[in-house]
């Protein structure tokens, strides 16, 4: 029933799945809609009265689900708010609310920890990782999605491993190899280390995305005289944009938040925000707790800005397959 309601609201649904005989079974619509294959979506309704499920009273299960979501969110808000409030606190000990509010710890954190440099490094590293991983990953995903060949399984496993293995396991050997070639401790090293899980991540998310694009579309384009460049540039690329955006955003978020690999390969001038935050937390006691929290707030704030910008362009659920909406 819910699905009936859902389908009624959606318009412009693909009519290709509807067998041609379907309209003949419901001849009362034909005079209105005409006998062509382009049946309007209303004709797809199952013969169940469509109800708007938004107005359905919530069941016990519904309450439980919403309760769980609410509990999770309340604790999450409390967790983030404790950090935010403490970063503004003059002093806060054994009370519900700090004794006074001040912003002085932000300027302290900004100056003492050279946050501007850290932010620039973070930005450069993540931009480089996103662009490179898409450039390397998408062609690979295309080949894996469209062809079956000898050794495909092996290659798939090879791309799965860097995602499935914890960064600490391959991070330690990777860091040595990078040190051996004098790459670690610099920005290049951090970018290379972060690419290792990012490229396979793009491949893994883009392969099912490309698989669900009908190969007949490409065949049709070729039939109409398009060459390879035109097939890629004018047919595939527009269809791939949502997937590439989704993959890029996830890579971006992973890179900015990637602690282990950056931690193992970064030198003094190439620490990203999250690593310098960890260092500040680990050496707690040297600095005021509020200054560390101020840094944490700056980190979260920049991540949130990224996320909000990103979510304007992409629906997070488009990660695997595109929604039929």
């Amino acid at each position, binding site marked *: *029933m819910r*699905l009936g309601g859902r*389908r009624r*609201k959606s318009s412009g649904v693909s009519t290709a*799945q509807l067998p041609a005989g379907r309209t003949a079974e419901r001849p009362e619509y034909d005079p209105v809609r005409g006998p062509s294959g382009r049946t309007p979506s209303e004709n797809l309704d*199952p013969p169940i009265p469509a109800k708007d499920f938004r107005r359905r009273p919530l069941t016990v*299960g519904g309450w439980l*689900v919403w309760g*769980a979501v609410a509990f*999770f*969110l309340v604790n*999450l808000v409390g*967790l983030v708010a*404790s*950090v935010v409030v403490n970063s503004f606190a003059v002093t806060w000990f054994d*009370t*519900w609310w700090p004794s006074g509010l001040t912003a002085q710890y932000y300027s302290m954190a900004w100056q003492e920890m050279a946050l501007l440099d850290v932010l620039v490094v973070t930005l450069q590293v993540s931009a480089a990782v996103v662009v490179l991983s898409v450039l*390397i*990953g998408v*062609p*690979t995903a295309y080949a894996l999605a469209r*062809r079956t*060949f*000898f050794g495909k399984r092996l290659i798939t496993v*090879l*791309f799965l491993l*860097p*995602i*499935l*293995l*914890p960064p*600490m*396991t*391959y991070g*330690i050997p990777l860091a*040595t*190899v990078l040190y051996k070639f004098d790459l670690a401790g610099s920005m290049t090293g951090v970018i290379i280390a972060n690419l*290792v899980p990012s*490229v396979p991540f793009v491949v893994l998310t883009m392969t*099912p995305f490309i698989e*669900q694009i009908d190969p007949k579309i490409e065949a049709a384009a070729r039939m109409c005289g398009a060459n390879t460049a035109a097939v890629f540039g004018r047919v595939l690329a527009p269809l791939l944009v949502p997937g590439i955006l989704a993959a890029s955003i996830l890579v971006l*978020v992973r890179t900015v*938040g990637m*602690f*282990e690999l950056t931690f193992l390969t970064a030198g003094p001038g190439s620490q990203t925000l*999250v690593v310098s*935050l960890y260092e500040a*937390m*680990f050496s707690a006691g040297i600095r005021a707790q509020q200054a560390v*929290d101020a840094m*944490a707030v700056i*980190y979260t704030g920049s991540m949130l800005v990224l*996320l909000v910008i990103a*979510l304007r362009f992409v629906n997070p*659920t*488009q*990660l*695997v*397959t595109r929604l*039929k909406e």
Partner: protein
Amino acid sequence: MTVTAPERPSLKHRLAERGVDRTLLLLVPGVLFVVLLFAYPVLYGLQLSFQPAEGGSPFANYSTFFSDPYLADTIWTTLRLAIPAALINVLASIPIAYRLRGRFRGKRFLTTILVVPITLGTVLTAEGLKQYLSPVGWFNRILMALGMDEPMRLVPSWTAVLFSLIITGFPFAFLLTLSYLSGIDPTLEQAAATLGADWRRRFRYITLPLLAPGLAITFCLTFVLAFSVFPSAYLVGLPQGETRVMSIAAYEAAFRDGDYPMGSTIAVIMAVVMLVVIALVLAWRSRLYRGATGGKG
């Protein structure tokens, strides 16, 4: 490639029938990358683990690891933390994603809110938990206002690390499950509804089987996230006790003690334990239906 040998035009054709054609050239940069920067360092670490710092038998590091309970027990410590966290994340995201898969007002807002914790990262989550769960933090204050006698000691503890794994892992699991669910063709469920199936039977016989491969992948990915827990185990856990996970042992061996081969050894054992769990899940997944109607992954 021999694909374009001019004197045997049929070879190209025969290879193309087996899926070998110029499209495969697109694989070259990706494969080259993963071999050079992933396979080579891993193999290098592997051979290093057989070269103990003090010399001796190639397996000296491994026998040290398994004979020293302080090191060997980290395997169980890690699994005891990672498996509950991954299971909670996946099992909680199924009903929530199932309920939220339709359209309703504010769906985008709610999805966005649930995505936010991913951006927090483990380091910030640890910082937040430290204050939120502390004896004078808001969590304990609320519990005491509700009638608890004395504050719970939650940081540092095993529970705090589990919380941090749920906070960072659940939204990830939820997002994946929701996208797998959205990928399932709604007409299938409509067909079942037309035949009179109620939502329980639709879920049991239509949605769940199509979703299961996706759930297996979701479990694997959240398990990896939880298994590799490092910063929060240090910051809100008991790094010398209940939450001394393998990554802490590996890190301490390699970077605190400078025994690089031992660090590699622990990293190798860590990878093997992990892959055993993943292989079990994927073996189960390969027995499932994976058709074009969605839920695949």
